[in-house]
């Protein structure tokens, strides 16, 4: 197909759509909500492989469109997530949220097509902006969304700043702005870029932002939020840092961080947020392993994860929407009243637990497989042995804290007396759609495998992709069932309490607040006074020398005149100091 004529970055469709949505009403808006992501999807697939587009900025050649297999895979699932998310949100979400979500999704797709670091950075920041807006949009319904969005923005801008420093350093060191594997380059710049990426992935020590921010969004808002930011970060890690060993440790930490905090968590959607960290930890570990199989695994897992996590959040969101309750302690016995929501939730829970015949099963095991396959050739095989054993344990753990905990406390357990119904039809449809995808990918994994980035590997070692062997099925069943045994046996220990768990965010939510109250806004009212206070110390010091100081207006002049003289001598003195 000859399409060179209108090669636009597909992300722009959604970004432009974000600005069109407010201009239209009713059915047209609904139609656009569903049509634009599909159009984007079409665009993603119409762009010929390996094509690219360039654009000049400063002295650099930007590459806002570079088609790659990884990019296409992620763009595909992003478009699908935007589609289903839009469907789910259809007339429940505020207009601002919908526009922001499209803007956000479009930027995420923009990242997947970015061929250079500056384009990447631009979309990266647009994403931060879009996602923050998705959060804000819920400020009316949930007042806590608003400060949460500020903290969220702050973390991401910090990440962005580190990323930008890294990019600048990288460009200076290599002279190239191309976005490609950086494992060969060296120096501080590389680590800064990595750090910037890791902030978005939810790596320690800043893992807390996910659980802090996402659950404050609206039901549909969190569906959007869960899909893009962390997964885009996984994408850039796949492209930029395959095989960076430190990612293995970071990934493992994230896996268990998510499980432990998830087990402690009472708020349903915070639980889901922790499970995002945990699941993304799997992917990060796989990127750290860095073989083609591992990268395929990370990509495939990201693909499947977006779908089942969105499904879980749609289910949890529906519960929140229909009952107004967000805590395990307030819920229970909803299966009878919200059967469709329950089925969706259970399907998602099974998928995240890698239950056979679900998408999780066929993707997560790629990563564990990568661990043992690489062990034979790796320089440090014991590390990979550990990785394998830990990931296997974590697979069981996933079942424990999401696969069982979520359905059990919400849909079964003791009836909490709530009598909601299933949510609006369009929300049900969206859940059906994703539930279907979860199963379909599990039953027919070949379709997903066919679009994975490293096809050579796939063809050379078909065996490793043969998920449905008796041994594998059996071991997986054992893993899950005995995790279930542990769950029910230790249920008393899992008694949910109305609490939250402290995390690193304590530093910026509590410590800074205390420090801030101590030092700032109390004096902020009368402009000049603030500075006076800052100067107060120095003033008092000098006041010792020449008696009480006078009215404020006279002081700065004298103060400054002194500085003038000091600088004058200083400027001259430099000549002799050196």
């Amino acid at each position, binding site marked *: 197909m000859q399409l060179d004529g209108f090669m636009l970055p597909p992300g722009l469709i959604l970004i432009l759509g974000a600005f069109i949505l407010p201009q239209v009403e009713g059915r047209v808006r609904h139609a656009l909500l569903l049509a634009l992501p599909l159009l984007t999807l079409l665009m993603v697939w119409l762009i010929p492989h390996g094509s690219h587009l360039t654009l000049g900025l400063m002295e650099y050649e930007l590459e806002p469109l570079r088609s790659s297999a990884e990019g296409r895979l992620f763009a595909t699932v992003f478009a699908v997530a935007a589609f289903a998310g839009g469907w789910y949100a259809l007339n429940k979400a505020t207009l601002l949220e919908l526009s922001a979500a499209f803007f956000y999704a479009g930027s995420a797709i923009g990242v997947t097509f970015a061929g250079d670091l500056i384009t990447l950075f631009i979309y990266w920041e647009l994403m931060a902006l879009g996602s923050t807006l998705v959060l804000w949009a819920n400020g009316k319904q949930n007042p806590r969304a608003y400060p949460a969005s500020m903290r969220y923005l702050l973390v991401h801008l910090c990440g962005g700043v580190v990323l930008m420093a890294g990019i600048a350093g990288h460009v200076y060191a290599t002279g190239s702005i191309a976005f490609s594997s950086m494992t060969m380059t060296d120096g501080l710049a590389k680590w800064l870029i990595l750090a910037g990426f890791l902030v978005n992935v939810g790596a320690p020590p800043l893992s807390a932002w996910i659980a802090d921010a996402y659950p404050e969004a609206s039901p549909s808002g969190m569906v959007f939020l869960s899909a893009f930011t962390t997964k885009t970060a996984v994408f850039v890690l796949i492209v930029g840092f395959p095989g960076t060993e430190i990612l293995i440790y970071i990934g493992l930490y994230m896996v268990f961080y998510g499980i432990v905090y998830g087990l402690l968590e009472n708020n349903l959607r915070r639980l889901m947020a922790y499970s995002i960290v945990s699941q993304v930890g799997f992917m990060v570990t796989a990127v750290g392993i860095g073989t083609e199989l591992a990268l395929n695994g990370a990509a495939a897992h990201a693909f499947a994860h977006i779908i089942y996590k969105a499904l879980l959040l749609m289910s949890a969101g529906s519960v929140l929407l229909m009952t107004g309750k967000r805590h395990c302690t307030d819920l229970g016995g909803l299966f009878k009243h919200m059967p469709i929501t329950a089925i969706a939730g259970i399907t998602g829970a099974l998928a995240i637990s890698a239950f056979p015949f679900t998408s999780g099963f066929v993707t997560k095991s790629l990563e564990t497989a990568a661990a043992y396959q690489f062990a034979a050739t790796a320089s440090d095989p014991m590390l990979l042995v550990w990785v394998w054993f830990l990931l296997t344990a974590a697979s069981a753990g996933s079942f424990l804290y999401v696969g069982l905990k979520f359905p059990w406390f919400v849909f079964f357990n003791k009836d909490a007396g709530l009598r909601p119904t299933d949510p609006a039809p369009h929300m049900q449809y969206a859940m059906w759609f994703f539930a279907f995808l979860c199963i379909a990918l599990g039953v027919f994994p070949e379709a997903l495998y066919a679009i994975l980035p490293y096809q050579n590997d796939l063809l050379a070692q078909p065996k490793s992709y043969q998920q449905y062997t008796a041994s594998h099925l059996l071991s997986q069943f054992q893993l899950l069932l005995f995790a279930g045994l542990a769950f029910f046996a230790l249920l008393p220990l899992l008694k949910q309490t109305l609490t939250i768990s402290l995390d690193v965010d304590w530093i910026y939510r509590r410590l800074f607040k205390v420090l801030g109250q101590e030092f700032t806004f109390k004096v902020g009212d009368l402009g000049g006074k603030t500075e006076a206070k800052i100067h107060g110390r120095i003033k008092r010091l000098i006041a010792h020398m020449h008696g009480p100081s006078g009215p404020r207006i006279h002081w700065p002049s*004298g103060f400054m005149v002194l500085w003038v003289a000091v600088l004058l001598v200083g400027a001259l003195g430099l000549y002799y100091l050196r």
Partner: protein
Amino acid sequence: MLAATAIAVIRQHSLFAIVMLFGIYSLLSASIFVVLDAVDVAFTEAAVGAGISTMLMLGTLVITGHHERTPKHGPVLPLVVVMLTGAVLVWGTLDMPPFGAADNPVHQHVAPRYIEDSPQEVGIPNMVTSVLASYRAYDTMGEVIVVFAALVGVLALIGIREQKSPRPVSTTDDKPPRPVLQVMAKLLIPYIMIFALYVQFHGEYGPGGGFQAGVIFASAIILYVLTFGLDDAYALVAPSVLRPLAALGVLLYGGTGVVTMLMGGTFLNYSVLADDPVQGQLYGIIAIEFGVGLTVATVMMLIFYAFISRGEKAA
């Protein structure tokens, strides 16, 4: 003596005395300039420093008050500042070419041409005037505009109360009439004005020029105001007449430049004003000096009016 006066200024607390001492200081510096052979500068210092600025400061005193408030902070800080700055200055002068030596760069580079060629190029004997009014005429225009800008500032800040005071009780009228003073002033003022005109038009040949003339002219009017009161002065020269004149002076200067431009020269190149370049220089210098005088005189008067009218209001 200069130093003694300066120290006296610092030690004094009565602002009135300080202003008077400043006048003395200016006169003393003027005589130093005379010693240094800088007659033009001395002239300006005497007219501006000792004359007009003393008047203006007195005008300010009428508005504010005669006594300094207790100092805000001790002398240590200013002392440190002055010592440091002074140290750098002294430092800088250590390597400076010796004062008065003929081989100084100052006397080697640009100055010789001014001295040797200006009579032929510009055609007037006073080199200072030829530098100010021709070689560096553009700077002089800038200075005139500085004066003009100061006027704009004063008008914006204080303004002139144009209408006569409803009750004819002003500070001067409260006191008994001073016939001796008034007669003396009436006698003096015409001479001062004529002297001003002389300085104005004789600037090309001897010390003097627009600045000095303008200031002297203004002091004549100021003397009149002081002796006869503001209302009479308004009757003589109203601020509404002076205002446009101040701008006209600037425009006369600038306009001369524009005319030279239109006649094919660069801005302020008077040589094109007449067939003979030297004659052209003369025309140009006369025109701009008149502009300078006009602006300086009117601005000085206006500023004085501004202070005095405000002072009367305060009283």
